[in-house]
């Protein structure tokens, strides 16, 4: 699409969407959001970029091939699930580590659940982009 306005706008919008997608991913455990929604938002950013600037530019901006991203996401999600085995729990049992004081609420929670959600994010992100790029290039 040869629209200079869209192209100029996309530069900022795509970045913002990506940033927002990570925000949605990270807040997902307590507020509306999560890996699925984050992945959808993130992919929207790149889809917009592909429409405005062409898939060639979008591909080079992404650096990695979207299929690889999706596969990596699946692998990360699996690893997150397998992590439970290290602690002797059943598969996909969430593992938590709280850095700081839980009582006062001043702490950083780390968990295998977040790793799993990141995997979901990458799967959704990669799969949609792979599809859209392929359709853009094919048709």
């Amino acid at each position, binding site marked *: 699409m040869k629209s200079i306005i869209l192209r100029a706008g996309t530069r900022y919008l795509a970045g913002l969407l990506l940033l927002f997608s990570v925000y949605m991913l990270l807040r*997902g455990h307590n507020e*509306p959001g999560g890996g699925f929604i984050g992945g959808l938002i993130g992919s929207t950013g790149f889809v917009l970029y592909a429409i405005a600037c062409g898939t060639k530019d979008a591909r080079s901006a992404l650096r990695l091939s979207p299929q690889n991203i999706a596969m990596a996401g699946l692998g990360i999600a699996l690893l997150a699930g397998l992590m439970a085995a290290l602690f002797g729990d059943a598969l996909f049992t969430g593992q938590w580590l709280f850095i700081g004081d839980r009582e006062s609420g001043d702490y950083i929670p780390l968990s295998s659940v977040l790793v799993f959600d990141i995997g979901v994010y990458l799967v959704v992100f990669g799969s949609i982009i792979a599809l859209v790029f392929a359709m853009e290039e094919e048709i």
Partner: protein
Amino acid sequence: MSATADPPRKSVVGLLPVALAAGLFTWFCTFLPAVAAGEVVRLAWDWVPSMGIALSFVFDGLSLTFALLISGIGVGVFLFSYTYLASYAHFGRFMWFLSAFMLAMLGLVLADNLIALFVFWELTTITSYLLIGFGHETKNGRRSALQALFVTGAGALALLAGFILMGLEAGTFEISEILAQDALRGSSLYIPILILVLAGAFTKSAQFPFHFWLPNAMAAPTPVSAFLHSATMVKGGVYLLARLYPGLSGTEAWIWSLTIAGGFTAVFASVLAVKQTDLKQTLAYTTLMALGTLTLILGQSGGYAMTAFVTFLITHSLYKASLFLMIGCVDYGTGTRDADVLGGLGRLMPVTAAAAGLAALSMAGLPPFVGFIAKELAYAGALEVPSSTLLVAGASLAANALMFAVAGIVAFKPFWRAAAGMETPRTPREAPWTMLLGPLVLAALGLVFGLAPGLLQGTLIDSTVAGLMAAAADPKELKLWAGVNVPLLLSLATFAIGFVLYAGHQPFRRALNAMAPALPNFDSMWDKFLDSLKGFAAWQTRIIQPGVLRLYVFATFTTVLLAISGTMIAKGAVPALPDLSDVTWKNWALVALLIVGAVLTCVTRSRITAMAALGVVGIGVAIIFITFSAPDVAITQLLVETLVIVLVAVALLRLPTLRLDGEEGWRPLDAALAAALGLTVTLVLLAVLETPIDLRLTAYFEATSWPEAFGRNIVNVILVDFRALDTFGEIAVVVIAALSAYALLRTTSERKDT
């Protein structure tokens, strides 16, 4: 664990599998004293405790016998492959496959849990598929691999059903507990369980009429044949029958099905063995004979039969692996395996000839080899059978006499008779020691155990027989000289008939070849079966998938409509009209928006309008979610809607305009279907709302989401924690769908480019 993907030839890395097998063999040997003393060692790890599935392993006489055979023969086979296959392009891959197979097989024979056993069973099926199809450049290699996979895979499905029935009946999947209950024979499900288990075991162990895959599987490289089709995989079925023997045997159904299938397979296969000229094919049929004999013996009961089972099992594994490897040496040294071409190799390949001789004497059942003892015991067992002595002894006699003849054809003629005058492709030379060691040691063990049967008796045989017969254990002594008795007379008869058959095997073979066209050929019947299956698939594809997208959609929606409305009418679930008094004007406006969007999508002639209208519908649904406070679902709906519109826009706007002849404008049939489906779904939703909701799960999630899963967003906590396995399955589906769609799109685009 073993070799890397592509190691430098002849590097030490290629010997890692040898070390693996040798290490396992040594480890298994450490169990010998305990098992010989009658103990049963168990190792167990929880796997899916909620379903009673555990990775439990048991070391008793039976499993240890198998484990030692698998790992011990594995050492010889790996060492052999190291030289024999060194020039293969995919040597590393081959070693990986073979190592994986060995581990799967060990898991199979050691597992004490039906489900674990099944998983290992299928792992052997898959790895053997890869190994049989190792020469996948050839059509024959692919066909053989696929045939073995289909036949054994189909049997495995039956087996799984049998295992589940058994587990449900007994209330546990642990084999040792099921056998301890000893309640299967009295169960009303006994016959179904037996049929399903036998289907699995007979396909795996290639019993008639599922025998045809095994000779074809000889398309595999020789070490694979030596390992899979002598000592290990095909014995998997026999192992299973032996493992379940205490729980299932002894009934009329068991006795007769095993006796008939085993006896027929043994005789039928040994006749066909004489017919073959390719030495490897000959051995393949003798393997069928051995499996038939083992099945036949397991159909019986009593101390002699059980002792004969274990002894013959060990004997056969030793001589058959040795003979297969020997044939590999001959092939390596001369370039051919044709029995009609080979001759006079004894002087040129003395060590191979010695190994072949030792193995063949055991196979022929001559004293003082362990093969003789096994045969004597089998005859003694046949004389006290509960079915028909004449049948069992007669089948054994015929099979053993033919074995005698085959031993001569395979291991005497190529070495000690003058060559047929035809040139071998290569000048015969002795194989290197790495290839000779395995067959020589295995063959020599046949002699050692024959001379000193006590080595086997006290360690493996007594404990296995004890396991098979439980309280009534009555292991018989292995001895070379048991006095002049009926088994000895039968043995002498065997030698006499066997010698005559060997001397006359050429005319016999000609006669068989002349008869062959008249007999049913299962291999070509298999082809016909596959062809008709493909024909049926093509026929129903033509009917169901004519290639017109609109027809697919029409068929799908009609099916859905009929299924739903049919169910509702059958159940009489007609919902009452809902109370609409508390619907606000905002909600009414939303509904109106949705209706307008939907109608506009249907009636507009412009694609861009249709997409925009469809978007209105989607966003309207998202607003409904927001109104009823489901923000996560609303966000997802909104985003999915956006992306769908983008995808549809990419596709539709660039497609050429279609002119549908006579289908322009008003299409009453489609409209009626759409209206009916919409109405039905509405009614279903209303009916669903009328049924009281079970809120226990909701309450559970609300209560535990924060304290146990540390999350306040219940939807997300369910997705990534409570139901993480489901989510994992779903994202796997997403990836597969994306990759498939991508692959479809890319293939056409590449075609366009070129």
